[in-house]
């Protein structure tokens, strides 16, 4: 069974108005899959009836939007961006921020938190002693932010890309779930944020973020919204900071105020006028 054309149109319009995310025709199956559990929980016989109830039920409307804006994710997703982060981006940041010994990273559209906690683990493993972190995780879904704060993951979620040595180091079993260590949870601050709306004042630390991960989310927006987001993100990145998009996304043709640099399979975006902090690999120092 698929949902009716009218139900799909209502939901697509609701999500677009609230979050600017696009649900094009053909995604009826996705809407149905994501709303069916909520429909059953609310006692409706089918998803159409549930969608009809959204017109008057504000609480369910919020829950439906949450369910429709979550992304499937995994730990160290795609791996290459994380390798670039630790091997190529971190050394110049360590050099440029030696006076403050503080690094700031923003996981925009953090979903259930696998990205920000993956970053937190890597920083623990790679930062010299005495450094502090400012790790911000934002998402349009309050349900997802709640999950990030709790830091609990099912076994199936833990299987998705979490290396076993890191699992035993950073997680403990709580019933049927795994809970990320209190140390890592304490490092991550969460904030509700709709990327399509103007950013609130004070989102970025003084000087801007050193690294912004904005991966696999621009694809959900229309062209104008993508341009607008990239323009506003530029205001929040440090002059020598970097933006990492998803592997299928680029600022090319969207915002000419970013420069693009390919590092291996990963494209790194820097604000125009910025230059990568001078960094000499150890092997070349003193050569």
């Amino acid at each position, binding site marked *: 069974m698929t949902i009716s054309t009218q139900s799909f149109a209502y939901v697509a319009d609701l999500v677009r108005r609230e979050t600017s995310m696009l649900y094009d025709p053909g995604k009826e199956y996705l809407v149905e899959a994501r709303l069916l559990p909520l429909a059953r929980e609310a006692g409706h016989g089918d998803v159409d009836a549930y969608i009809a109830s959204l017109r008057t039920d504000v609480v369910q409307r919020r829950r439906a939007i949450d369910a429709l804006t979550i992304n499937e994710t*995994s730990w160290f997703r795609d791996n290459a961006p994380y390798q670039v982060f630790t091997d190529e981006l971190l050394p110049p940041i360590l050099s440029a921020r030696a006076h403050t010994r503080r690094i700031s990273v923003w996981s925009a559209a953090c979903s259930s938190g696998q990205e920000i906690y993956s970053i937190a683990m890597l920083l623990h493993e790679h930062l010299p002693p005495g450094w502090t972190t400012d790790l911000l995780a934002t998402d349009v879904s309050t349900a997802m932010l709640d999950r990030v704060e709790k830091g609990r993951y099912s076994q199936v979620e833990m299987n998705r890309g979490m290396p*076993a040595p890191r699992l*035993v180091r950073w997680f403990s079993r709580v019933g049927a779930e795994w809970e990320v260590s209190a140390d890592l949870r304490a490092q991550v601050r969460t904030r509700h944020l709709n990327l399509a709306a103007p950013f609130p004042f004070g989102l970025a630390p003084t000087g801007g973020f050193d690294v912004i991960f904005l991966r696999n989310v621009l694809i959900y927006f229309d062209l104008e919204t993508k341009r607008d987001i990239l323009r506003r993100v530029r205001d929040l990145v440090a002059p020598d900071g970097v933006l990492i998009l998803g592997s299928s996304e680029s600022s090319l043709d969207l915002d000419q105020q970013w420069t693009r640099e390919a590092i291996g399979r990963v494209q790194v975006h820097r604000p125009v006028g910025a230059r990568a902090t001078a960094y000499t690999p150890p092997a070349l120092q003193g050569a």
Partner: protein
Amino acid sequence: MLALIIDDSRAMRMILRRIVTGLGFEAIEAGHGREALDHLERGRVPDVCLIDWNMPVMDGYAFVTEVRSRPEWRHITLMMVTTESEHGQIVKALAAGAHEYVIKPFTPEAITEKLELLGLVRDGALV
């Protein structure tokens, strides 16, 4: 590349076989650790073993310990695929020489991503 699937459940061996052959591996199977060692001793040395923990005759932990005691098999990548989900069991398997650990139930993506982590697979195909 050769994958050795070690599990006493024929259905589970079939599921894993389908996943790894889909990635380009050649696959052989064993119903327990002793049968798996027989493969190795006969010269069918795999690149990676997917190993259940609880099996008759020789369990997965004993198999990992045995393989790691033989220097000529040091290069074999060992990945546990098991229902054993306690923190201490994972630590024990890693300490014995397993490289990775997947807890049942799993999705095909979970196996693929772990093989990617181990450097055997990239973009859904053998490296």
